[in-house]
């Protein structure tokens, strides 16, 4: 099986946890001294996330415990540690990630097309983890900024259109109750 097919971008972000988690002692994974993100002098999250410039450390340093120490929502560390979500329900986690990988493998659509769809959906559901992961993934699949921006506009148009088309309901109701 080809490397690209084994893990999707969200999983790739958490690949260290998946690769090392199974065979590692718990103290290897979770026994490290932790720092909150602000301790590492992080700047603006969005800017750092877009440029992928947050502090990188040993893959073994990322830990579930650290998530508990985050002092705000949407810490970039969550993405790297996503694999630990399986701890509470390993079988469900396994099934989810297998399914996830299968979804993003090339099929009737190419991997690049699927990544662009994911990027658009990420903006629709406004998931910063997904935006981070699929911005990189789109670039790595060969898309450029113009193509990615058009994908985001598709999300924007559908989202805006969805609001506007509800105006039809407004119109009908207004017609019914109005003179």
């Amino acid at each position, binding site marked *: 099986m080809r490397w690209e097919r084994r893990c999707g971008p969200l999983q790739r972000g958490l690949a260290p946890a998946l690769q090392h988690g199974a065979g590692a002692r718990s103290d290897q994974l979770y026994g490290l001294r932790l720092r909150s993100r602000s301790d590492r002098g992080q700047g603006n999250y969005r800017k750092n996330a877009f440029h992928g410039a947050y502090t990188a450390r040993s*893959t073994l340093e990322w830990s579930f415990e650290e998530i508990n120490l985050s002092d705000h929502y949407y810490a970039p560390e969550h993405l790297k540690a996503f694999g630990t979500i399986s701890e509470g329900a390993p079988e469900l986690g396994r099934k989810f990630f297998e399914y996830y990988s299968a979804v993003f493998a090339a099929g009737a659509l190419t991997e690049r097309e699927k990544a662009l769809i994911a990027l658009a959906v990420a903006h629709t559901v406004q998931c910063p983890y997904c935006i981070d992961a699929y911005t990189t993934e789109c*670039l790595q699949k060969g898309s450029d900024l113009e193509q990615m921006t058009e994908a985001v506009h598709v999300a924007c148009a559908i989202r805006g259109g969805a609001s506007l088309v509800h105006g039809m309901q407004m119109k009908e109701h207004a017609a019914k109750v109005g003179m």
Partner: protein
Amino acid sequence: MTSTLSSRRAPLADPAAQLATLDASMTGRSTFDEALRGAGWNALTPATLEIFQINLGKLCNMTCRHCHVDAGPDRSDAMMTRETLDACLRALDQTAAHTVDITGGAPELHPEFRYLVAEAHKRGKHVIDRCNLSVLLLPRNAGLAEWLGDRDVEIVASLPHYRQRNTDAQRGDGAFEKSIAALRLLNAAGYGQGDPRRILSLMTNPAGAFLAAPQSSIENEWKTALKRDFGITFDRLLALNNMPISRFLEWLIESGNLDSYMSRLVDGFNPTAITGVMCRNTISISWDGRLFDCDFNQMLDLDAVTARSMTIETFDFAAWQQRDIVTRAHCYGCTAGAGSSCGGATA
């Protein structure tokens, strides 16, 4: 547009400074050798020698932001002499290598470029010209595409993307337009139309701190887009990761991407990419006749380690094949994702 590290006397012009920066970025991460051992390789050993890669020098008409050679118009200080070039040919004759891979800089700017091509062709070798495309538009190179075609030379042309934005971002404003003009010129010379004697390969590097796209998954899209938008055809697409050295290393540092890029390379380590890495089947020869395991080690001054010291003048094929390949942190660039080599993906 950037300028060469050398012309700016930038600290990173010194390969030792690059290695020190790379080593510092690896703190807390597995070394490449540890990753190799984890994959069952106690050492990276040579396979059959297939490719003579000759770097004619650092002179180039372009100054791309990602250049691992620190090549540029001011680098006429580093050019292979005819004597060294003849030593390359004598060494080539000691081996059964089937390919002579000519690189630089822009090798077409070297005064002995045609001599080398002609001699390699005369020996029945497959010759590769690593071409930046725009060099073909220079008046001095009028007719070069046809001349190369007459000698069955494969052109491996750098083109980051089939659209303008990423190409110009990496190679400078106007680079895309010139690349398209040069590709049309190559098509007119019979290149890129399925003729095995006039192979046109395009090589894409990422324009940023991310891995190369899997070449097999994007080749058809590239072919469709270049044909549709510009009427251009080519034979195959190669995708290469950027090595965290030289000017790309400088950009990684300045843009705050070094740590995350190293994470991407280390986390993306793909054991199945090891077998096909280019250092195993290639000898890399620098403009001054030194021998290296690959062009990247060459730029880092990491000379090949053989039982007895040798240059291309004193090349000993048997001793060459018994060496262990020199590895450092940048080697993760060749084993990340789909793998990466001068021949494209390795996995």
